[in-house]
Every structure is written in structure tokens, then in C-alpha cells.
């Protein structure tokens, strides 16, 4: 089991155990089978605490297709909450996290938001990765006037199609990510690009935003191959890749991605075009898995680097220690348990944004949720540091979306090495709407 | 008088087997006709073709002057051809009442009043002597009563041609007597086509008898004529004294 000697071993986190997370709860969690399964929350605050804790409802992909992400989102969240509590909590109150499983299903996701609002009566809801769950849950958040902070990287929040209560302040949205990749691809990888992407929304963002971004850089997309989501083998689509392709831009996700890479390798052998991909494909997957040798020398987008880099900041090092990942981005003590490092930093950073906004708003309880929304909208930038270890960010309160730097990493010697960092400006685009005009 | 039912060159193959082979048959209105023959002679296949349960390989069926060869079974039932099954197939989980209500409610032309259904059902149950068992699930009736319920359902269709496929099979002797009376009564308003193994019943009821053998009509005539027919005796009666 992955958690055998992982996160709960406090001695390895480098933080003192003021939170009072007991060995007993940890064992209970293990007994329940999935590591963090203790109800109602995983933080036991000490009896001396006088004021009631701030309750954060955590909508997690514990089951369903997103479960690998869910587990690491929970670990990162636990680490951030522990750090926040150790430093005195928010407005002097401890933070308690209540987890509900959304099953990676939009219907269940909406129910879970309702449950947080009406049964657990949490102060906010904090959540989840998969876009359809976010979109499915957003109406419930709006109706319950429940601030809903997501770490999804989808463009849905910034598209202003959701509502005023939904925020994404901890991770850059995919439209911005794609846009900021284009200059590097055009300059370093090649001018004729073939895109392979899943035939659903995550893929459509890439389908729609990459071609104009590349065109602006003097490169072009010469073919787009959309793969149906039910597909489990890919070779039959490869003949559609034009022979003059210089770069294959691939963003496959889901458990079949290893097959995809392996089959691409069998198809091309050593005589392949340049490869550029989004690490989403290989989150929670060991880059040295059999069959992935083919990726050696190819490039990936990473939100936050999986492997420790030589120029890592102190904040980055502290963050990695707190979450419990080693230099290879795997769980401390279990090198096979690879994290979702490129995304999960967003949980850490989002919680610090929540902390900042609650402090700015003088947040006392659910009656102040509107104030919290306004205080969040008033934020403009987050400086790099322990609270934002991935890097500096700007925040656009009108579209509830943050924008940060992105990393392009090359696979070399079985590790991902950052070869390029984009600038925040590379990923900025014109706002598509304005949430602040909506009623609270 | 024109026949109620005629078949011309009616055939049905199952794989290589000609179960019904080029049969020309005519049935007069008001008649009680018995169809007899050894097992596998094609009797049940023949009436199944007439009732529309299976489609003929070739040939033609005319009912009341109209060609019904290509009509589906339910349309033939609506035109007045009722079929009661050889193997009892009442709706075991439904009450006797509901079993009979199904044919009654369909034949009712006004289709509205609940009273009419009830009256129709009870009349059919009365005629078959099942009135006091109306609310019992059909599956819990005795075998003989299930056979009678089957007849009651046929009756409730108000048929012009009632096809009875081995109706007395499994009945006790006393029940058979009642049954013979019942069929005579039915025959006042309807033509009856009867497949039967029980020779005394056939001899008592039938106006005419058709003998099947190997998918063909071997002989046809009055009970007396059939009794005397040497070919029939050889093919059939000889084997079943």
C-alpha cells in the first residue's frame, strides 16, 4: 500500500506536529483502506483551542477515473492545512478539512457541494480537478452562495460561464498554459505541428487555443487528431499523422496514456518527430516505466516540476518536504508512488489564497461569505514564497483566475529537467467577461 | 354454402422436414371438425398455420372469403379465429378473472364501462364452471380447471372458429363429460376445429373427421366412414386399438 510509510509519518515532513494528528487516527485511516479515510476530517485540533475551527469542505476524487489525482490532492491539502494551523490558523482559528468523495461524477459532485453547504455547514468548498465535476458542481455552489475554490486548471472559471462564487486562484488555466507554450515550441521544436488530443473538453481547449497561438509565432498546426474517450489503443490513428510533421503535440489523459506512448514508440522507432506533451498524461506515472523510454529527449509542460531542480527555491524545497515527496516527485519512502506534482501545488497555494482573503475580509463565519468573495476578487498578485512555492502569480478578480509561470521540461536520463520557464505575460489574454457585475 | 375456412396447397418445412405437405382443406360454418392422426403427423403445425402462430412455407389460407395468409396472428384472432393451446398456457400469475378479462376487454366495442368487462368475464367463467374461483391465481387452479380456463378464454373471444388443441388431455373422465357438453354448446354459435387423441370424444363430438399422416391429409369423412377406412386403420387406428 502506498501510504505504508508515507505522509502520516510526521518525522519525515520536517514540521513539528503541533496539529496533534495522532498515530491512532493515522492507523485508523490505514485500516479504512485508503489512507485518509477518517471521518469527519483528518485534523484533530487540541482541546485548548477556544474558537471553533474554520471548516473547509474538500470535494475529492476518491473514486472514479480521477482517483489518482484525488489522493495526492488530499495529501497536499493535509500538508497545507497542517502548515497553516501550525502557524496559528486563519484569523486565529484552526482549519478543519471535511472530505467528501465526488466519485469524479458531476451529479455526485453537485450533491457533495449541497452536503457541505447544508449538512456540514462548511465555510467554503475547496476542490477538485476534473472539469465536468467543477461545471456540474458550480450551480450548487452558486445557489447555496457557497464560495467554491477549485484547482482544476480548466478554462471554465475564466470563461465566466460559471458564477460569482467559483474561483481558481491557485493554478493557471489551460488556455493560458497553451498560449504560453507556443513561442517555445515554434522557436525550438518545429514549425509544422500535429496535435493528438482526447475528443473531449480538455482536448478541445488544446484544439482551439494552440493553432492561433502558434500562428502568431510563425508556426502552424497541420493536422488535428481527436481520439475518442473510450479508446484503449491508438496505433490505428497514427497513419493520420502527416509525414512532414516536425512536432507531435500530445495531450492524452487517462489510464491509457502509457499505451499511447508505447505504441507511438513502436510505430516510429528512433526515427521520430519532436514530441511535446502536457504532463497531465503522465501524472502519477513513473517516467521510467517500461515502454516510456521512447519519451527520452522529449519535452513536457509542467505546472510545478516533478523532479527537484538544482535551482529550486527554499520555498519549493520546504513545500516538497511538507507534502512528503522526494527529489523524484514520489512519496517519501515509496519511490513507486509517484505524485501529481504538476497540479497538486495548486491545492497548497489555493489554501493560502483562501487564508489571505479571509484575513482581508475579517471573515467570521458563513454570514461573511459575500465579503470573502469580494475580498478574493480584490486580490491582484501573489508573490513567490512559502505560500506560493510554484512561483509568482497575478490574479484577475473579474474572471476569478490566476496566471503564473509555466515550466517546459526535457526528459533526460530518466528525469524531467526544466529547460525553460515562461513569463506570466506570455499567458495573458483578454478577459471574456466579468463576474463582479453579477449579484452576490 | 361457402366454407368458413379453406387452405390451398398449404405447406410448412422445418429444415428438411415437411411437417405440413400441400394440404387442401375446407371447413363448413357450424361444423365440429376433428383432426386426428399419429404423433408427428402435422396436426398442431397445421392449426398453428391456420391461427397464424407460424408462417407457411407456401400455400394459401382463406377465412370467410378473405385471403389471410399474410396476416399476423392477432389480426386473425380479431377476425374470429381463436386458438386454445395444447400445452396449458394460462397466465399463471394472474387471477382467473384477469385471464378472462384480457380477451373480454378486447372484444368489447364500447371499451369504456367496467361493468361490461365484469359481466363478460363472469359469463365466460359461469359457462365453464369457474365462477367461484375467479380471484384465484390461475397457476393455483387444478390442471383440469386450467384447461377449462383456457376454453373460457377462447370463449370470451366470441370466435367464429374455435381451434381446440387436445383439450381433454389430462382431464378426468367426469370432467370429459362436462367438456363434451360444453363443446356442443359452443358449437351452436361457432365452428369448432378439434385436435384430439381421445377417440370416444372424437366419435361423440365430430360431425366430420380429417385424418393427417406424415403432413398430408390421409382421409376425410364422417366418423362412421373414417372408422371403416382401411388406410386409416392401417396408419393410425391399427396402432392405437
Amino acid at each position, binding site marked *: 500500500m502506498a501510504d505504508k510509510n508515507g505522509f502520516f509519518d510526521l518525522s519525515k515532513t520536517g514540521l513539528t506536529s503541533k496539529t496533534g494528528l495522532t498515530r491512532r487516527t493515522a492507523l485508523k485511516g490505514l485500516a479504512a483502506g485508503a489512507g*485518509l479515510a477518517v471521518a469527519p476530517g483528518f485534523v484533530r485540533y487540541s482541546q485548548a483551542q477556544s474558537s471553533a475551527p474554520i471548516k473547509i469542505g474538500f470535494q475529492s476524487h476518491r473514486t472514479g477515473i480521477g482517483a489518482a489525482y484525488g489522493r495526492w490532492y488530499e495529501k497536499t491539502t493535509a500538508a497545507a492545512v497542517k502548515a497553516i494551523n501550525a502557524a496559528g490558523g486563519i484569523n486565529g482559528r484552526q482549519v478543519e478539512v471535511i472530505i467528501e468523495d465526488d466519485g469524479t461524477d458531476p451529479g455526485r459532485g453537485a450533491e457533495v457541494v449541497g452536503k457541505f453547504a447544508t449538512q456540514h455547514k462548511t465555510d467554503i468548498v475547496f476542490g477538485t480537478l476534473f472539469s465536468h465535476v467543477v461545471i456540474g458542481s458550480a450551480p450548487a455552489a452558486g445557489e447555496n452562495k457557497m464560495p467554491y475554490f477549485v484547482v482544476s486548471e480548466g478554462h471554465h472559471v475564466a470563461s465566466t460561464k460559471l458564477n460569482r462564487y467559483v474561483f481558481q486562484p491557485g493554478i493557471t488555466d489551460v488556455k493560458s498554459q497553451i498560449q504560453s507554450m507556443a513561442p517555445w515550441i515554434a522557436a525550438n521544436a518545429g514549425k509544422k505541428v500535429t496535435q493528438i488530443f482526447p475528443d473531449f473538453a480538455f482536448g478541445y481547449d488544446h484544439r482551439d487555443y494552440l493553432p492561433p497561438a502558434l500562428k502568431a509565432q510563425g508556426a502552424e498546426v497541420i493536422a488535428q487528431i481527436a481520439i475518442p474517450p473510450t479508446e484503449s489503443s491508438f496505433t490505428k490513428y497514427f497513419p493520420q499523422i502527416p509525414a512532414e510533421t516536425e512536432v507531435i503535440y500530445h495531450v492524452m489523459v487517462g489510464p491509457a496514456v502509457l499505451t499511447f506512448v508505447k505504441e507511438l514508440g513502436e510505430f516510429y522507432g528512433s526515427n521520430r518527430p519532436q514530441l511535446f506533451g502536457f504532463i497531465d498524461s503522465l501524472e502519477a506515472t513513473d517516467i521510467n516505466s517500461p515502454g516510456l523510454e521512447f519519451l527520452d529527449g522529449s519535452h513536457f509542460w509542467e505546472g510545478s516540476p516533478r523532479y527537484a531542480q538544482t535551482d529550486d527555491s527554499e520555498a519549493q524545497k520546504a513545500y516538497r518536504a511538507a507534502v512528503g515527496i522526494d527529489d523524484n516527485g514520489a512519496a517519501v519512502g515509496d519511490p513507486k508512488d509517484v505524485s501529481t506534482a504538476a497540479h497538486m501545488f495548486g491545492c497548497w497555494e489555493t489554501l493560502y489564497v483562501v487564508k489571505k482573503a479571509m484575513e482581508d475580509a475579517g471573515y467570521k463565519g458563513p454570514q461573511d461569505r459575500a465579503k470573502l468573495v469580494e475580498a478574493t476578487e480584490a486580490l491582484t498578485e501573489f508573490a513567490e514564497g512559502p505560500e506560493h512555492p510554484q512561483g509568482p502569480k497575478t490574479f484577475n478578480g473579474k474572471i476569478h483566475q490566476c496566471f503564473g509561470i509555466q515550466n517546459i521540461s526535457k526528459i533526460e536520463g530518466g528525469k524531467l529537467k526544466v529547460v525553460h520557464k515562461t513569463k506570466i505575460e506570455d499567458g495573458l489574454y483578454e478577459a471574456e467577461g466579468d463576474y463582479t457585475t453579477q449579484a452576490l | 354454402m361457402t366454407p368458413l375456412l379453406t387452405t390451398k396447397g398449404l405447406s410448412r418445412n422445418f429444415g428438411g422436414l415437411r411437417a405440413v405437405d400441400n394440404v387442401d382443406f375446407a371447413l363448413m360454418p357450424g361444423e365440429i371438425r376433428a383432426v386426428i392422426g399419429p404423433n408427428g403427423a402435422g396436426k398442431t403445425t397445421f392449426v398453428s398455420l391456420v391461427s397464424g*402462430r407460424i408462417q407457411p412455407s407456401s400455400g394459401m389460407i382463406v377465412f370467410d372469403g378473405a385471403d389471410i395468409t399474410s396476416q399476423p396472428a392477432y389480426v386473425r384472432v380479431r377476425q374470429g379465429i381463436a386458438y386454445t393451446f395444447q400445452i396449458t398456457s394460462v397466465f399463471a400469475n394472474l387471477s382467473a378473472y384477469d385471464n378472462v378479462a384480457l380477451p373480454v376487454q378486447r372484444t368489447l366495442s364500447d371499451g369504456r364501462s367496467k361493468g361490461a368487462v365484469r359481466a363478460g368475464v363472469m359469463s365466460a367463467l359461469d359457462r365453464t364452471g369457474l365462477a367461484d374461483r375467479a380471484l384465484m391465481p390461475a397457476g393455483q387452479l387444478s390442471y383440469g380447471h386450467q384447461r377449462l380456463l383456457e376454453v373460457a378464454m377462447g370463449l370470451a373471444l366470441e370466435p367464429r372458429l374455435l381451434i381446440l388443441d387436445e383439450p381433454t388431455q389430462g382431464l378426468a373422465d367426469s370432467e370429459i363429460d362436462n367438456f363434451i357438453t360444453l363443446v356442443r354448446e359452443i358449437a351452436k354459435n361457432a365452428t369448432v376445429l378439434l385436435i384430439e387423441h381421445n377417440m370416444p370424444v372424437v366419435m361423440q363430438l365430430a360431425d366430420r373427421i380429417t385424418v393427417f399422416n406424415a403432413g398430408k391429409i390421409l382421409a376425410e369423412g364422417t366418423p362412421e366412414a373414417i372408422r371403416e377406412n382401411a388406410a386409416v386403420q392401417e396408419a393410425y387406428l391399427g396402432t392405437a386399438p
Partner: protein
Amino acid sequence: MSEASPAKAYALHLGVIALLFVLSFLLPEYYHGLLARIMVLAVFAMGYNMLFGYVGLLSLGHAMFFAAGLYGAGLAVIQLGWSVPAAFLCGIACGAVVALVIGLLALRTTGVAFMIVTMMFAQVFYLLILYFASWTGGDQGMVVPQPARVLVFGATSLELTNPTVRYMTALVLFSIVLLVTLAIVRSRYGRVLVAIRENEERTKMLGYDTFSNKLAAVVVSGSICAASGAAYALLFGYVGSSFASVQYSILPLLWVLLGGAATTLGPLIGTLFMYYVIDITSGYTSAYLLIVGIALILLVLFFPKGILGSIRQRWLGWLP
């Protein structure tokens, strides 16, 4: 179906409706919201039961009827700007049309072939939603905007996002479908459907056009499921392809089998049971699917006809 005890049956059903009405004022907020959702999904299960329970046709494609209602209503609001009642009717109409087409094709088969054919058509429907993603929102789905989700009666308007309005709307839909179901199964038509389930061949030989009767049942069933989907879109504000996936075809089957097939109240009981088992167990362990699985097996071992079906068999024979 029998002529006996109509008064008892109607009293029971009106009693259940009255109880659900009273519960609206007693339940804590969370369970109030949950029950509204359960009532809408119970309508889905009732629609499924109409075909599976009473006609004996096991479909594994009912998600497409639910989704037809969901998208029919949702897209009418989002893309065409229709009002809520018009969108609701549009959803039902979409479901009826889909059911008619699917019925005409799939009813050429019976038994397991019917099961597989409906499943495959539902898969096609699901893939079509993805294929026309620019219109449907694909797998991400779409939000039905909150301002559009109001019922306008002259000068007054009711916001469907208001918990009480939502609960009562769900209750009205549920009650209508429940009473319609009860009326159908007690009608002559209901008797014919059961006869088809019990012995289709025999029913034909009583002069019934079983194909048309079954087709009508598919359309009624599909329309009820579509009504549930349309209500779901309008009351909860989200349309998405996951509701068209095979999982949502299996769920109503499960709810109906749990509650008791061919019982009018079984679908509600089954949906309620399943929801509460998941809700309660997921509070204790993340491995709640394990408990759900064990619960299903125990239930089927000891209540093989479903909860209400077993009660009817053992104690209350008059239950419709």
C-alpha cells in the same frame, strides 16, 4: 391489476404523497435537498419500471431517454432561451421521439438481444453528445444559468433554485407520475402489459397487437424518464454527458430491482435506499462502494423480489 381494493391502493399512494409533503417542513436542510433530488430520480426509476417491471423488457439504454430529456430541456434554455415550462415540454417531447425511434428498432428483438441493442443505441447517443460538443458542451457539460431557472405565473415568479420551490416542484412531478403509473397499471392497458410480460405468445393469440402495445410502453417509459431528465436539468442546473453513460442506464435497473419490480412505490423505495446507503456509508469510509456491493448481495439473497416486492409477497398481497 385485479379489481380488488382500489380504495386501499389509492389511499396508500395519497398517503405517501402527503407524507412527502409534510416531510418538506420537518427535514433538516441537507436531507430536504437530497430528497428533492431523490424524488426526481425516482421518476426516472418509475419510468424504467414501467417497461421493465410491467412489460418485462430489460433495457440497458434508459440513460438515453433521461439524457434526451436533460438535453432537450437544458439546451432549449441555454441555446434557444426558452422558458422553463416550454423547455420542460421540449425535454419530454425529445424523450418521446427518441423512445419511438428506438422502440421501432429495438422491439424487433427480445430478451438479451433487446438488452444489448438498447445498450448500444444508448452508447451511440452518448457518443453523439460528445460528437456535437460545440452544441452540447461535450463531456464537460453546460450550466443552465440560474437567472433562467424561474417559473413565471403572471406577476409572480418562482425561483427553481429556492429549496422549497425546488422540493415542491419535484414533489408535484413525482406525484403526477406516481398517480399516472398507478392509473396505468390498474387500467386495461396495464393488464395487457402484464399479460405480455407473462406470456407474449398467448397475448397475441388473444388478439392483441403486442408490438404496438410494447411500443406504446417504450414511449410512455421513455417520456417519463425524459420528464425526470428535463426536471433534473431545470431544477439542478447542469446538463452533462455523464448522465448518458451506461452507468446511468444501470442505476434505474438497480433502483427498481431493489425497491421491487412491478410495484408502483418500489422505484421510490429503491432510489431512497440506495442514496441513503451511499450517503451514510461514505461518511464512514472511502471504501463505501464495498459496503454498497455487500448490501446489494445481501438484499438480493434475502429479499429477492426487492424490498416492496418481498413485502407484497409475504404480507400485503394487495399492494399495486
